C-alpha cells in the first residue's frame, strides 16, 4: 500500500492532467474506504526520510486537507471526521508528525501545519492539551537540532495564532513558558535561523499573549526584548523583530506610549534610512500602520462627539510628531525603484507611496504643505525616478488636507502636469495617468471645465494607446469622470427636470465609447488588468450617460450583442483560452447589464427575446468552467427581468431550468445568492402570473435553505425571496405555509441565539432578521389579501404569529440595524391593522417603547 500511496502522491504532482485526475480519484477512494488508515499512511509517508521531499510534502498537504480542508475555520464536520477515527490511529498519526519535525527540507515545515490543524480540532475538545508544552520542551532542549527547533517553533506559532481566533483562554496557562522559551532562544541560540524562527513565532503569538501584554512589568520585558532584537547583527532577525513592532502597534496602540520616543521611533526611522530594503519596507509599514490606527481613532472620536459622548480612546498623534523626520525619508524612498520593476512586487517606492497616502489622510495640511515643494522641484528632474516620485507624491497627498487648498493647487497644476503625459518613461506615464484618475475622482468639476476638458481627453486618448499599465489607469480615470459628470449635472438639475438630459461629456461620449471598444480589442489587453478595467469603463459610460446620448447606448448594446454572439459560438481548446474567454464573457455581460437598465421599455421589448436566447446559450455552454460567468449571466437576466416587468412572462419557462440549477449550486455562494435573488425578482415582477412556476422555485429555495454546506449569506436571501413569492401569489401561498413556517421558526432561533461581539456575525444576524421579517411580512400581507383584513387562514396562524412576536421582542434586546427596526415597525403595524386589539396582550409595552425609541433615534429617514 505504501508504495502505491507514494505513486499516487507522485502522480498528483504530475504535469499530465489525466494522471493528476486519476491520482486524486484514487486518493479520494482510499480516504472514503478507510479514513483512519489513509491518514495514518499519509503521516508515515510524511515522516519517511527516505522519500523525495516533494512527495513527503504532498503527503502532508493531503493530510492537512483531510483535517480542515481549505477552510479558515474548524467546522463541526471536521471535528466529527477526526474523532471518528480510532484512538490508536489518531495517536499514531500525532506521533508520526511530531517525529517529522526537523527532518524536512526547505524553510517551512508541512508537519508543523498538520500539527496545528490537529491541535485546533483537539484542544477545544479538551484533548492533546500538552502539545504546546511538549513542543516548547522540545525546542528548548539542548539536544534539539537546529531544524527541529525551527520546525517546532513554527508549529507553536501556528497553534497560538489560530487558537487566538477561537478561544485563547484554552492555552493561556502556557503563555509564560512560551515567552520565556522564545526569549531565551532569541538571546542565546547560536543559530540565526532559530533566532529568526523564534521572532516569527513571537510575532504569531503577540495577540495570544494579550494578558502578559496588559501587565506593565511583563510588557516592559517583552518590549525590551523585541527592541534589542532589532539591534541583532543578523539582518533576518532584525527585520522579523521590526515586523513584531508593526504588529504590536496595530494590536496595542494604547499601550505603546512608554516605548515610542526612546524605542519605536528611533528604531523605525533608522530602519527606513538603512540600506536593507526589507528593513526599509518594515520601517515604513510601521508608520503606515500607526497612521491607519490613528485615522480610525479620529473617525471613532468624531462619531462619538457627534453623539454627544466623550470618545473612549483618542489618537496620541504619533504621526504628527514624526512627520518632520519621516517625510523627507519617505519622499526619498519614493525614488528608490528599478527600470524593470515587477508591477506585482511590493517595492520600497510603493511602500512609501502607500504610507504617504495614509499620513496625508491622518495629518492633513502639514503633509500637503511639506510635500508640494518636493513635487515642484522634481517634476522636471532629468532622472525619471524623481519625476515619478514627484507624481506619486502629488497623487497621494490629495485626499487628506482641507479640500479648498488642494483644489486650488490642483486647478493650477493640472494643465502643466498634462504636459508631461508624453514622458519617455512608461513608469512615469503610468503614474501620471493614475494621478489624473485621482483628480477625476476627487474633483471632477476641475477636469470638466471647458478650458481644460479637451486637453485632458487628449491626454487620456493617448494614454489609452500606450502600454497596458498606463491604459488601465486611464480606464479607471474614465470611470470616475463619467460618474463625476453625471453627478455634477444631477446637482444642477432644474426644478422640473427628473433626468440628466445633457452633461459636460455629452459631446465627447461619442469618442470615448469607441476608444474603449478599440481598447478591449487590443492584443495585449490581458496584461495589467486592462481588460476588466476597460469593460468597467464601458459599463460606467453607459450607466452614467445623459439622455441625449441614448443612441450611443443603443449602438453599444448592438455591438455587445454581436460580440457575445460570436464569442459564445467560439470553441476553446486550452485552459488558458478558457480563462480568457471567461473574462471576455464577464466583461461583455457587465456592459450589457448596465445597457439594459438604460433602455426604454419599447426598445427593451424588441431585444429581450434575443438576449434571453444568448444568455441561455451562455448558461448551457460547458466551455466556461467558471462560476463567475454564470453569475454574470444571471445578473444580466435579472436586469432584463426588472426592465421587462410582467412582460417577462413568455421567457420564464425558457430560463427557469438554469435558475433552478444555479440555486442548487449551494457551494458557490455568489452564484447561488444571485440566483435566489433572481427567482424572487421574477415572482415579484410577474405577480400572479408566476403561480404555475412557484412550486418549482419554492422547492429549490427550501432545499438551498436546508443544505448543510450552503454559504451562509444565501440564507437571508432565500427568506427574503419568500416575501416576493408570497406577495406575488397572495392567499395561494397557503399551500407552502406548513413547511415555510417550520423553517422560519428554526431560522428565528438561529437569529436570536448567539450573542456575539464579532462585527461580521452581528451583520449576518441582522441580515437574517431582515430576511425573516420580510418573509413574515410577505406572508401576513399575502394571507390578509388586498383589503388587509383578518381572514380565516390568518386566524389559524395564531401559534406561528405568537412565535413571530416572541422573536421580535427578543431581537429588540440585541443590536438591531435600521433595516430591522423599520421592518419590525411595519410588521407591528400590519399585525395591528389585521388583528386589532387581539395582539395587544402579546406585546410587552416596554417592547413598543424600545422599538419606538430605536426608530426615532434612527438616522435613517425611512425608518422614522
Amino acid at each position: 500500500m505504501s508504495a502505491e500511496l507514494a505513486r499516487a502522491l507522485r502522480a498528483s504532482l504530475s504535469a499530465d492532467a489525466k494522471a493528476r485526475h486519476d491520482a486524486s480519484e484514487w486518493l479520494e477512494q482510499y480516504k472514503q474506504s478507510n479514513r483512519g488508515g489513509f491518514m495514518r499512511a499519509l503521516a508515515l509517508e510524511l515522516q519517511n526520510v527516505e522519500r523525495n521531499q516533494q512527495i513527503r510534502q504532498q503527503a502532508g498537504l493531503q493530510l492537512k486537507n483531510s483535517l480542515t480542508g481549505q477552510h479558515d475555520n474548524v467546522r463541526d464536520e471536521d471535528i466529527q471526521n477526526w474523532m471518528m477515527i480510532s484512538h490508536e490511529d489518531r495517536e499514531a498519526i500525532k506521533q508520526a508528525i511530531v517525529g517529522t519535525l526537523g527532518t524536512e527540507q526547505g524553510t517551512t515545515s508541512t508537519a508543523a501545519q498538520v500539527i496545528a490543524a490537529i491541535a485546533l480540532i483537539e484542544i477545544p475538545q479538551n484533548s492533546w492539551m500538552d502539545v504546546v508544552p511538549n513542543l516548547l520542551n522540545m525546542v528548548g532542549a539542548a539536544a534539539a537540532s537546529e531544524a527541529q527547533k525551527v520546525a517546532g517553533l513554527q508549529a507553536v506559532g501556528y497553534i497560538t495564532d489560530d487558537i487566538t481566533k477561537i478561544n485563547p483562554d484554552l492555552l493561556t496557562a502556557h503563555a509564560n513558558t512560551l515567552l520565556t522559551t522564545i526569549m531565551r532562544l532569541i538571546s542565546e541560540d547560536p543559530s540565526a535561523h532559530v533566532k529568526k524562527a523564534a521572532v516569527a513565532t513571537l510575532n504569531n503569538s503577540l495577540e495570544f499573549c494579550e494578558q502578559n501584554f496588559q501587565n506593565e512589568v511583563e510588557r516592559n520585558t517583552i518590549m525590551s526584548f523585541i527592541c534589542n532584537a532589532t539591534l541583532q547583527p543578523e539582518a533576518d532577525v532584525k527585520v522579523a523583530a521590526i515586523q513584531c513592532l508593526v504588529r504590536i502597534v496595530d494590536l496595542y496602540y494604547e499601550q505603546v506610549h512608554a516605548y515610542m520616543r526612546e524605542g519605536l521611533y528611533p528604531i523605525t526611522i533608522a530602519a527606513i534610512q538603512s540600506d536593507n530594503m526589507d528593513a526599509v519596507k518594515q520601517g515604513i509599514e510601521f508608520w503606515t500602520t500607526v497612521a491607519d490606527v490613528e485615522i480610525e481613532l479620529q473617525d471613532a472620536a468624531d462619531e462619538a462627539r457627534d453623539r454627544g459622548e466623550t470618545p473612549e480612546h483618542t489618537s496620541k498623534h504619533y504621526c504628527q510628531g514624526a512627520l518632520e523626520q519621516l517625510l523627507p525619508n519617505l519622499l526619498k524612498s519614493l525614488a528608490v525603484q528599478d527600470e524593470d520593476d515587477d508591477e506585482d512586487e511590493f517595492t520600497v517606492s510603493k511602500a512609501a507611496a502607500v504610507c504617504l497616502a495614509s499620513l496625508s489622510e491622518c495629518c492633513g495640511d502639514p503633509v500637503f504643505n511639506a510635500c508640494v515643494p518636493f513635487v515642484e522641484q522634481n517634476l522636471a528632474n532629468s532622472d525619471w525616478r524623481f519625476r515619478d516620485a514627484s507624481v506619486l507624491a502629488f497623487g497621494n497627498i490629495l485626499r487628506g488636507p482641507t479640500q479648498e487648498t488642494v483644489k486650488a493647487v490642483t486647478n493650477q497644476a493640472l494643465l502643466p502636469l498634462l504636459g508631461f503625459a508624453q514622458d519617455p518613461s512608461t513608469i512615469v506615464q503610468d503614474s501620471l495617468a493614475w494621478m489624473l484618475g485621482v483628480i477625476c475622482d476627487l474633483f471632477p468639476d476641475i477636469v470638466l471645465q471647458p478650458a481644460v476638458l479637451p486637453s485632458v481627453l487628449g491626454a487620456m486618448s493617448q494614454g489609452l494607446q500606450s502600454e497596458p499599465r498606463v491604459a488601465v489607469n486611464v480606464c479607471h480615470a474614465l470611470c470616475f469622470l463619467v460618474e463625476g459628470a453625471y453627478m455634477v449635472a444631477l446637482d444642477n438639475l432644474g426644478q422640473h427636470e427628473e433626468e440628466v438630459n445633457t452633461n459636460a461629456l455629452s459631446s465627447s461620449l461619442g469618442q470615448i465609447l469607441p476608444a474603449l471598444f478599440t481598447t478591449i480589442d487590443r492584443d495585449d489587453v490581458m496584461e495589467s488588468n486592462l481588460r476588466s478595467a476597460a469593460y468597467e469603463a464601458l459599463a460606467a459610460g453607459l450607466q452614467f450617460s445623459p439622455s441625449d446620448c441614448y443612441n450611443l447606448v443603443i449602438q453599444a448594446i448592438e455591438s455587445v450583442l454581436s460580440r457575445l454572439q460570436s464569442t459564445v459560438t467560439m470553441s476553446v481548446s486550452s485552459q488558458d483560452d478558457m480563462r480568457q474567454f471567461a473574462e471576455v464573457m464577464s466583461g461583455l455581460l457587465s456592459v450589457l447589464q448596465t445597457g439594459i437598465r438604460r433602455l426604454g421599455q419599447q426598445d427593451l421589448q424588441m431585444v429581450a427575446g434575443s438576449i434571453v436566447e444568448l444568455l441561455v446559450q451562455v448558461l448551457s455552454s460547458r466551455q466556461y468552467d467558471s462560476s463567475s460567468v454564470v453569475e454574470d449571466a444571471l445578473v444580466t437576466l435579472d436586469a432584463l427581468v426588472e426592465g421587462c416587468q410582467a412582460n417577462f412572462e413568455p421567457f420564464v419557462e425558457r430560463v427557469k431550468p438554469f435558475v433552478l440549477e444555479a440555486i442548487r449550486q449551494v457551494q458557490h455562494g455568489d452564484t447561488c445568492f444571485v440566483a435566489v435573488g433572481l427567482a424572487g425578482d421574477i415572482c415579484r415582477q410577474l405577480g400572479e402570473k408566476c403561480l404555475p412556476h412557484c412550486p418549482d422555485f419554492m422547492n429549490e429555495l427550501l432545499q438551498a435553505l436546508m443544505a448543510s454546506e450552503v454559504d451562509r449569506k444565501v440564507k437571508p436571501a432565500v427568506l427574503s425571496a419568500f416575501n416576493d413569492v408570497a406577495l406575488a401569489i397572495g392567499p395561494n401561498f397557503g399551500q407552502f405555509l406548513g413547511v415555510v413556517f417550520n423553517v422560519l421558526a428554526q431560522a428565528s432561533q438561529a437569529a436570536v441565539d448567539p450573542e456575539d461581539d464579532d462585527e461580521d456575525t452581528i451583520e449576518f444576524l441582522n441580515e437574517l432578521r431582515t430576511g425573516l421579517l420580510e418573509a413574515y411580512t410577505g406572508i401576513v400581507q399575502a394571507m390578509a389579501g388586498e383589503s388587509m383584513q383578518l381572514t380565516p387562514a390568518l386566524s389559524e396562524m395564531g401559534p406561528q404569529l405568537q412565535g413571530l412576536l416572541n422573536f421580535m421582542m427578543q431581537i429588540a434586546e440585541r443590536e438591531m440595524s435600521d433595516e430591522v427596526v423599520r421592518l419590525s415597525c411595519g410588521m407591528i403595524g400590519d399585525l395591528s391593522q389585521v388583528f386589532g386589539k387581539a395582539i395587544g396582550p402579546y406585546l410587552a409595552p416596554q417592547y413598543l417603547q424600545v422599538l419606538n425609541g430605536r426608530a426615532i433615534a434612527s438616522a435613517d429617514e425611512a425608518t422614522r
Partner: protein
Amino acid sequence: MTDRLRDFKFKGRDSDAARNRRRENVVELRRTSKNEQMMKRRNFVATDDVKPLGESSQNILEENTHMDLPQMIVAMQSPDIATNLAGTVACRKLLSKGHNLPIDNVIEAGLVPRLVQFLARDDNSKLQYEAAWALTNIASGTSEQTTAVVEANALPYLIKLLSSNDEDTVEQAIWCIGNIAGDGPHYRDMSLTAGLLQPLIYLLSNSPKLSLQRNATWVLANLCRGKNPQPSFEAVQNAIPTFVSLLASDDQDTVVDAVWGLSYLCDGEYRRIQAVIDAGAIAPLVTLLASPVSQLQLPAIRCLGNLVTGDDMQTQQVVDSGALPIFARLLASHKENIRKESCWALSNITAGTQPQIQAVIDHNLIPLIVKALADGDFRTQKEAAWALANITTSGTIHQISYIVGQGCIKPLVDLLDRDDSKIILVCMDAIGRILEAGKQPDGSNPVCEWLEEAGGVSLIEQLQDHENEEIYNKALEILETHFAEEDEEDTGMLVPDASGTSFNFATPVLAQGGFDF
C-alpha cells in the same frame, strides 16, 4: 504586507472588486423595489413629494373608519348608551390605526371628558373597556395629550376600574394608568395620592393572568421610579414585599421589572436600604445576580450596589451573602454595561471598612477591576477608578501596595489625559495617596520612578496648565511634594540613534507571576 499592494495606485480595483460592486448594485435596486411592494398594502407608497399634512390625515379619517369625526361626536354625546358604544368604538379605532393618529382632533372635539364619563358606566363594562382603550391611546401621545386625559379627571375612575370583574377592562385601565404615571414625577405622585398603590398590590397578590401581571408589575415599578424628586418613601414602601415575592415569578419580564422596582426603592437613605434588606431581598437578588441573563443581571447589580451604599452593617450583609464571587464573572462579561455597573457596585464596597476591602482583594477582583480600568469604555474606566481610589483612601498600606502590584498605576495615569475634570481629580488623588504610601524610611520612593515610567510625571506637569483650579493645585502639590528636585526639560523627539546600546523599559520589582529567566 502583501495586501498593501492593493492600496497602491488603483491596484485594488480588479475584476473581483468590479463584480462585487455589480452584485451590491443589484441588491440595492432589489431592496428599493421590494420595499415599494410591501408599502403598497399599507396605503402609503413612499414618494418624494410629501402631501400637505391636513390632506393626508383627512385620508386616514375617510379610509379607516365608518364614522367621520362629526358623526362620532354626535354618537358619543347621544343619550342612548348603545349609540355611545358605537361612537366610542369608532373613536378607539380611529386612534388605533395607521400613523399620524388624529389625537389632537379628538381632544379638540371635546371628547375626552365624555370618555371619562363612560369609565364610570358600571352598567356597561364593554363601554368602559372601549373608553379606557381610547384614553390609553390618547395618553400614550405627547405630554400635552396625556395632560388632557388627567385634566378630565380620569385617574380616580381608572383606579376604580382596577376592581372591575372584567379582566380585559382591568388590563386596559392599567395600561392607561401606566401611560399617565410614566409621563413624569408629577403625574406619578398624583397617581400615588389618588390611591393607586393598594389596588395594584392587591391585584398582583392574587396571581392574575400573565399579561396582567407583567403590566401591573411594570406600572408598579414606574410608580417607584424617578429621582427629581424621588417618590416619598412612605407612599411607596408597601410595594417592597410585593416586589420581593415577584422575584420568584417564572416570567422573566415580570422579574426584570420587579428588580428594577426594588432598585428604585433602595436608592437613597438608610431606612430605604434597611426596609429592602428586612424584606429578605438579598438572597433572591444574589441568585438573580448569578443568572446568565443580562437583563436580570443588570438590575440585580444596581439593587445590590444600592444596598452597599448603606452603613457598614448593611454593606457587610451583602458581603456575607456570597455576592462577591459572582462579581468575578460579571467583571469578565462581554457586556460593557455589566462591567461598568459591577465596578460601580464594588466601588461602594471598597469605600467601606478595611476587612470589606480585604474581602474584595481575597476574591481576586482587583486584577479584573484594573483590567476594566485599562481597557473598558470610558464610563467603565471611571467607575473602576473610583473603586481603586477608594482603596487608597481607606485601605491599609499593605492593601494599597497590593493594588499597585496589580498594575493600577499605568491605567490611572492614562486617565489623566482625558477631557473630564472630575475623573482627573479622582485619579490624581489616588496617585497622590499611592505616592504617600510609597515613601520609604530612607526617604526614597519607588513609586516616583514607576509613575515616571508610566508617563505620569509629564502628564501631571502638563496638568499644571489645566483650566480647572483644583486640578492645577493638586498637580502642583504632587510635583512639589514628591518631585521637587527633578526638573526635567522636554527635548521633544530624540534624534534616532540606531547604534544605541540597548533598550530597557523595565519597571522594578513588585510584580507577581510574570516569567522566570
